[in-house]
């Protein structure tokens, strides 16, 4: 049987997703046996010419991690789309925009001022040097997930995708048995299904941040008042963060039926807040609990702001 051909690309990314491909330990050797990795900028030198030289759909599978932040990212996404039979949005950034999607809550100017200081120091997209000119890829107005610029076949959620998930993906690839288009390589259910903690669905009387108190390792984190995104997040990771006594931050994105992960958790948390018997006298206390939420978007939309209403700032 001919070896499969795969490619890995990183757009606006941190490199964690590339590292995560090696979390499968020895299985990577099986992968190498079954497939040739023809393109992986993080691990091997390659030129864009090489990609352009591939035939249409020559690559069986491309794992695209990182979000679309610059013109370069978009170009490569479009290019790889034509050269790949199956394109997977790999990792949270490609899937839902990732943490870096929160950049959309700042303007271009605010970001550049923070990073580069005064305007004179800002990089220019068009540079003339010694009679020659260079065009750098433009910083796009908004950072978006992969599927806003090309058609995506698979989603591999997680920041980064956990070992079990990656291993599952590789097993399918090695067996030559990739699932139907549109498959999300994670559980259809939320994290609670995999979480071993004892749940009582307590009413929430105050909100705690992880640094304020050490969580009880046996009890549900939400019951204790920590905002655990587990109920609104796709499982499949084995609930590793709660197992390490930290609340889930939602990196795998929303569960199968939900469009807006943050809205789902806002609903759930608001529903659970309860300082006494439900009546008007509790409203002030309830609002005080809501006010304890320090960073709404960083908490509820940490990985999934890009596709939501709250994925940009508006000007009335």
């Amino acid at each position, binding site marked *: 049987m001919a070896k499969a051909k795969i490619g890995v690309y990183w757009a606006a990314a941190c490199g964690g997703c590339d590292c995560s491909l090696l979390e499968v330990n020895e299985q990577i050797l099986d992968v190498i046996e079954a497939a040739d990795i023809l393109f992986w900028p993080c691990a091997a030198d390659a030129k864009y010419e090489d990609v352009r030289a591939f035939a249409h759909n020559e690559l069986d599978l491309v794992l695209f991690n990182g979000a679309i932040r610059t013109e370069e990212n978009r170009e490569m996404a479009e290019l790889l789309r034509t050269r790949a039979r199956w394109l997977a949005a790999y990792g949270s950034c490609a899937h839902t925009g990732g943490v870096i999607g929160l950049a959309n809550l700042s303007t271009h100017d605010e970001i550049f001022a923070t990073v580069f200081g005064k305007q004179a120091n800002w990089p220019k997209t068009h540079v003339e040097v010694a009679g020659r000119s260079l065009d750098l890829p433009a910083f796009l107005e908004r950072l978006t997930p992969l599927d806003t610029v090309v058609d995506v076949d698979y989603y591999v959620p997680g920041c980064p995708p956990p070992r079990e998930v990656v291993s599952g993906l590789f097993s399918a690839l090695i067996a030559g048995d990739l699932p139907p288009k549109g498959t999300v390589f994670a*559980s*259809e*259910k*939320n*994290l*609670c*299904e995999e979480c071993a903690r004892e*749940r009582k*669905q307590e*009413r929430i009387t105050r909100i705690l941040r992880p640094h304020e108190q050490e969580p009880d390792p046996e009890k549900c984190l939400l019951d204790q008042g920590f905002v655990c995104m*587990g*109920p*609104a997040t796709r*499982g499949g990771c084995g609930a590793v963060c709660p197992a390490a006594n930290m609340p889930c931050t939602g990196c795998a994105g929303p*569960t*199968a*039926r*939900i469009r807006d992960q943050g809205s*789902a*958790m806002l*609903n*759930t948390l608001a*529903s*659970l807040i309860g300082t006494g*018997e439900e009546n008007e006298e509790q409203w002030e206390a309830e609002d005080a609990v809501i006010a304890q939420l320090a960073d709404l978007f960083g908490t509820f939309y940490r990985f999934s702001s890009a596709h939501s209403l709250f994925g940009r700032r508006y000007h009335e």
Partner: protein
Amino acid sequence: MPVPRIGVFVCHCGLNIERTVDTKAVAEALRTHPGVVHVEDYDYMCSDPGQQLIKEAIAEHRLTGGVVAACSPAMHEPTFRRAAEEAGLNPYLFEMANIREHCSWVHLDRNEATRKAIRIAKTLIEKVKGNHPLEPVQIGHVEKCLVIGGGITGIQAALDVADAGFEVLLVEKAATLGGHMAQLSETFPTLDCSQCILAPKMVEASRHPNIRTLTYSEILEVSGYIGNYAVKIRRNPTYVDPETCNLCGECAKVCPESVPSEFERGLVERKAIYIPFPQAIPSSYTLDETACLGLQPLRCSECAKVCEPGAIDFDMRPEILEEEVAAIIVATGYELYPILNLGEYGGGEISDVIDGLQFERLLSSSGPTGGEVRRPSDGKIPKRVIFIQCAGSRDPENHNAHCSKICCMYTAKHALLYRHAVHDGEAIVFYIDVRAGGKGYEEFIQKATEDERIRYLRGKVARLYREDDQIVVWGVDTISGRRMELRADLVVLALSIDPHPSARELARTLKISCGAEGFLKEAHPKLRPVESLTAGIFVAGAGQGPKDIPESVAQGSGAAAKAITLLVQEKLTHSPEVVAIDEAVCGGCGVCVGMCPYGALSLNGAGVAECNEVLCEGCGTCVSACPTGAAQLKNMTDAQLHEMIEVALADG
């Protein structure tokens, strides 16, 4: 889901709609909406010919669903759903678009109203496209009713259900039926002898072939749902066989242990082996093991030695019964507010400051003073009695906020009866208001106020204390504006009415609610006063709120009627527009469970949420709380709402 073939029927409603909304334009606009295969407009869709048009269209165009754009669904949804059903289409595939109350009747501009009507109709077309055919939920049920509480309310309820031909289990905590009514001397406004009107009912209940009475018993556990409740009851041992006991009373004579008598409210003592009152039902003595010297091991057996019929059995043990009932009526009654809490009125330390029920015992011919009004401290006949209304009621800062409803009437009764008994006696009533709303009540109060030796003083009593052999009472007469310092031989407090202390725990066992003050919560204060929010569980009597005997009896019958309605149906049906859980995405987080006011949700053995369709009322609060979208309302899913929202806002 089949390919949608939706029929749209636009009603002119005479000129009601047509005057403002161009129904033909609406029909035209909807003709091209995706999924619509048939549109027509007509003068009066709800009329027979109108309904006929709908039925014919369903058949001719093989409609999979329909929308009638007309008046409010509150008017005619059942009409059109019935028509659809008659034409062979599941009624839940028919919706109404309100283009009258919400459109033609409230707007002036024809163009704007027409455009809005089209939008409204489109939202319902989208809803119908997502609707599934639904069948009403059907549940079988057992044929027994449980009544908890053997006072007048519970007895009435039990009799009504039993007379209707159904089996009743009547469970009472005390050793006898009768409740507080048995302690009363006479009842207002008729001054009927309480025992005389109560005893026949008690006997009837105990003898009724359909009623099984379990006194000295408690409810331990309740599970299940309407039509099918599983109840665990503990019968506490009385150590006396009621069939054999002949009421000779020799046992009590030799019993060495005494405790304050509950029936006489502590005015006198009773023995460890006792009968609460002579007409008690069951007609038997009871051995109170907490007052007895000891049964395990047996420390004394003087009572058994003198019991000629051999009715005493120290080997009796608690019995656990498991029963299945279709409906439960809760009639736990009331208790008086603890006098201990009224420090300003002596806190229970002054023997001649008594409560209304104690005064009833003094008045009663079978009471500790043989019907002579003698005060507790020295047995003297009081020549001046001061009655204090609202003791602990209407006082949100310190005691109960509510009005206890019956005190004005029974205080007037007490004053009148006292005056009958002590001809030269003087009664003073301190009141804030006099509430006498029942039939004949105002006239009754007049009798009291007209008596020249009964004085009504409008004002609160600040405090009272004993001085020598009288009670000094500091009050105020707000009408004359004078502070009063009066001396009385006896003070009677109209203590506030509290729910029975066992009610809260029982409510938790039954999973029904109590209000903030502890009274059983009714489903709706105006229109559903004898139903709890839990289907199949009804509430009645003073346990639901302070009330007098006629109201208690009426509620007992009302609750019985509700139970009978349930029992008489072959199968119980329930609307199918309820919540369904998608097990494929439910992770068992359980957030939904606590959201439901009806207790319809639970986590099942497989770790996923489950909705009991019989208990679900279809509000959808759990759907909004569900973080995965696993919980959805049938025929009002997130997906349907999304389509409705899109089409409501679309351009054009």
